[in-house]
């Protein structure tokens, strides 16, 4: 079993005990790595019903079998997995850069953090030498400062650091974990879980060899991938980058604006990928092993935010921009930089600020609660101020730091109607009122509102289906992309490379086999994708999530798109949603309640987890009988 390091590191932060266990080949083959392996380790190392901030909720960090190898985009990924403080179901967030490479070189497939440290610490992994270091002097520092400080004090520039900022320390529920300065394991509040453990950072230096099973074959495969990555399959990422989406979605009437009040943005030209690249992008860089390079580094050339240098992608640009009514790219870039600095998910922070602006405009919160701040849509200075207040839990920021769902419950009245989230996780930049395949993908995503669990906007945006219509068949489309996307996140390769696997699972299985020496057929790999999706589902079922949680935001169901144009009048009705869910559950082999059947679990080799569905289906039945 090459490619894999073959070891899992356990760190008990309560007792300071550190030990390793071997990674079993069967587990590796079934759950691959990344989020698949991570979710399985989470499930096996946790009890149900534990609060995400309880020391008993473990935080799992996993690399993939390809990490540390030259597989393009595959050499560098890592994933954090834990019970999410936003969704109270499974939380997972991946990141790229160089951190995952270094972790594999140090010789670990996964690190599991148990318990909670009494005082702030960081973990220092120097190959086999693993120790907890005092982090008192780092507490309160930004992610950037923490990264620099650790590399300085350990006197090694090539140390890779993943750290939380003040937001994670203060248990802001949308806190992320940053690495390599510009990369974030952003979603689901993994940084808050890390903060709840008093774990400030993980610093890694690895010097072990990464060996692969079939060198010659692997180089042939890599050569093919390199050629594809220079071609049209990766053009978007090599040229304008994801901000290309701005004008595409604008045209479709699918760009949520002012917290999903509208679906087009008047100042779209001023925040487009075209304008961004012309005026701001100074360089495009790449992660370790990547032959595509996509990371657009933008620099603000003048004005009050002059010199701000940050990575830019469509999603955070949308969240901090159009979703807050902000059409000033200087301020948007500053907002992204601040999010990274404080360590909050730059998507969710835009979701929360947009939500607060919506409440302000509807009189649900007032100036007096905001120490005089005029929080109207489009006020970019107020937007930046709110990023700070939420990240540091200042004033009303303390309530908003709970995420839109919990904050809306606290604020009360009609506030929940303005909370645009799914399973407690803030929405991302696709207006699913007029993208019905995507709406299903978002509704069933096991980590809450997210485009990256399914990519089901693909057929909608490309016009392969009637995007305004809910109909049978969409369940199959969503299942297929979900299975593929979980494999992408488990191997881990980059989502942006998905177009370069011309033969899908066949290409990915070939890479897996060449690296690990474990023969894997495309069919087996697809099965593993299905298995991992069921695993995410099972974790959520264990934690009490049901069909009711597979839904879309209130606004998506109750406020039709008002903008003139093709998408006008679109929304997702309860009827649409039920039809889509029924179709999807059927394709998945799940019950009407969205619970995997015993037959399905046996079919995909998950006999050992049947107990989870049995507990859920048999207990209520027993109870009902007793009551009779």
């Amino acid at each position: 079993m090459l490619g894999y390091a073959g070891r899992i590191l356990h760190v008990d932060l309560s007792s300071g005990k550190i030990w390793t266990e071997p990674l079993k080949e069967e587990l590796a083959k079934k759950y691959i790595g990344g989020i698949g392996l991570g979710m399985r380790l989470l499930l096996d190392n946790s009890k149900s019903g534990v609060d995400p901030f309880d020391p008993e909720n473990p935080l799992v960090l996993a690399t993939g079998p390809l990490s540390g190898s030259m597989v393009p985009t595959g050499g560098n990924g890592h994933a954090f997995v834990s019970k999410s403080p936003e969704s109270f179901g499974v939380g997972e967030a991946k990141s790229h850069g160089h951190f995952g490479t270094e972790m594999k070189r140090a010789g670990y497939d996964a690190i599991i953090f148990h318990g909670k440290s009494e005082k702030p610490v960081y973990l220092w992994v120097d190959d086999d030498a693993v120790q907890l270091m005092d982090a008192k002097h780092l507490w309160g520092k930004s992610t950037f400062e923490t990264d620099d400080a650790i590399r300085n004090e350990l006197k090694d520039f090539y140390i890779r650091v993943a750290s939380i900022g003040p937001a994670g320390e203060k248990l802001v529920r949308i806190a992320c974990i940053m690495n390599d300065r510009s990369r974030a394991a952003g979603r689901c509040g993994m940084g808050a879980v890390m903060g709840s453990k008093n774990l400030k950072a993980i610093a890694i230096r690895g010097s072990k060899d990464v060996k692969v099973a079939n060198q010659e074959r692997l180089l042939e495969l890599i050569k093919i991938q390199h050629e594809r990555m220079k071609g049209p399959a990766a053009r978007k990422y090599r040229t304008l980058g994801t901000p290309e989406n701005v004008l595409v979605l604008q045209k479709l009437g699918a760009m949520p604006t002012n917290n999903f009040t509208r679906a087009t943005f008047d100042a779209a030209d001023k925040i487009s990928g075209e304008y961004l690249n012309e005026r701001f992008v100074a360089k495009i860089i790449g992660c370790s092993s990547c032959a595509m390079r996509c990371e657009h580094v933008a620099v603000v050339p003048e004005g009050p935010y002059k010199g701000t240098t940050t990575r830019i992608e469509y999603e955070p640009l949308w969240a901090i921009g159009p979703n807050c009514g902000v059409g000033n790219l200087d301020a948007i870039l500053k907002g992204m930089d601040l999010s990274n600095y404080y360590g909050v998910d730059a998507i969710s922070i835009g979701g929360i600020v947009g939500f607060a602006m919506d409440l302000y405009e509807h009189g649900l919160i007032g100036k007096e609660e905001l120490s005089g701040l005029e929080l109207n849509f489009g006020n970019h200075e107020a937007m930046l101020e709110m990023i700070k207040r939420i990240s540091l839990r200042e004033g009303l920021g303390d309530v908003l730091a709970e995420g839109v769902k919990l904050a809306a419950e606290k604020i009360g009245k009609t506030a929940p109607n303005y909370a645009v989230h799914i399973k407690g996780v803030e929405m991302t930049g696709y207006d699913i009122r007029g993208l019905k395949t995507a709406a299903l993908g978002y509704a069933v995503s096991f980590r809450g509102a997210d485009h990256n669990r399914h990519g089901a906007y693909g057929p909608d945006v490309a016009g392969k289906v009637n995007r305004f219509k809910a109909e049978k068949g969409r369940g199959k489309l969503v299942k297929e992309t979900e299975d593929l996307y979980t494999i992408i996140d488990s191997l881990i390769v980059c989502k942006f490379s998905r177009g370069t696997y011309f033969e899908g699972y066949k290409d990915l299985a070939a890479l897996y086999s060449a690296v690990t020496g474990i023969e894997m057929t495309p069919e087996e790999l697809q099965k593993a994708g299905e298995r991992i999706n069921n695993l995410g589902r099972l974790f959520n079922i264990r934690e009490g999530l049901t069909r009711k949680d597979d839904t879309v935001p209130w606004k998506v169901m109750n406020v039709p798109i008002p903008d003139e144009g093709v998408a006008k009048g679109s929304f997702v009705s309860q009827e649409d949603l039920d039809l889509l869910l029924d179709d999807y559950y059927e394709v998945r082999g799940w019950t009407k309640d969205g619970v995997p059947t015993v037959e399905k679990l046996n079919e995909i080799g998950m006999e050992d987890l049947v107990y989870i569905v049995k507990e859920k289906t048999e207990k209520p039945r027993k109870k009902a009988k007793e009551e009779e």
Partner: protein
Amino acid sequence: MAAVPKAESAKWKMVSCDPDKCTGCAICEYICSLTKENVFSAQKSRIRTMRLHPLINISITCRLCTPAPCVTACPREALTQSEQTGVIMIDDDKCDGCSWCIEACDYGAITLHPELKKVRICDLCDGDPKCVKWCPEEALDFVTKDILSQKARIAVAKKLFKESMEAAGIKV
């Protein structure tokens, strides 16, 4: 003291990195360690990537200095420079890993093999450097110093005369 070759140095070709094109992906490190050591390992690569800041990326390997400070610094005469190619050759029987050469190199182009405890320096893959071949951005080039300076002159001339060339409708 080892002989200091000079006569052929104008013809020597070296691996040079254009920092404007380098993305910091480290593919050069991966392919180098695989070619030379059959493993992926940054430490065992003869070329190393340095990202000082997102905007500052460069890969660095032996620059074929002459006279070569590493050769001069070696107290055991383990290093010699090829007259034909400029490559620094290592006599493993003589090298004891003392690392004086590492200190002498201004570019950090010499590394100590973590297991063998002998130094390792780029040997240009016998005139066909794999890092240059595999660099997806064509940021690496295998060139003589004369061609390097030529390239720089072309770049600067383009920059200086960009406007007048455009005005005259000349495409370069």
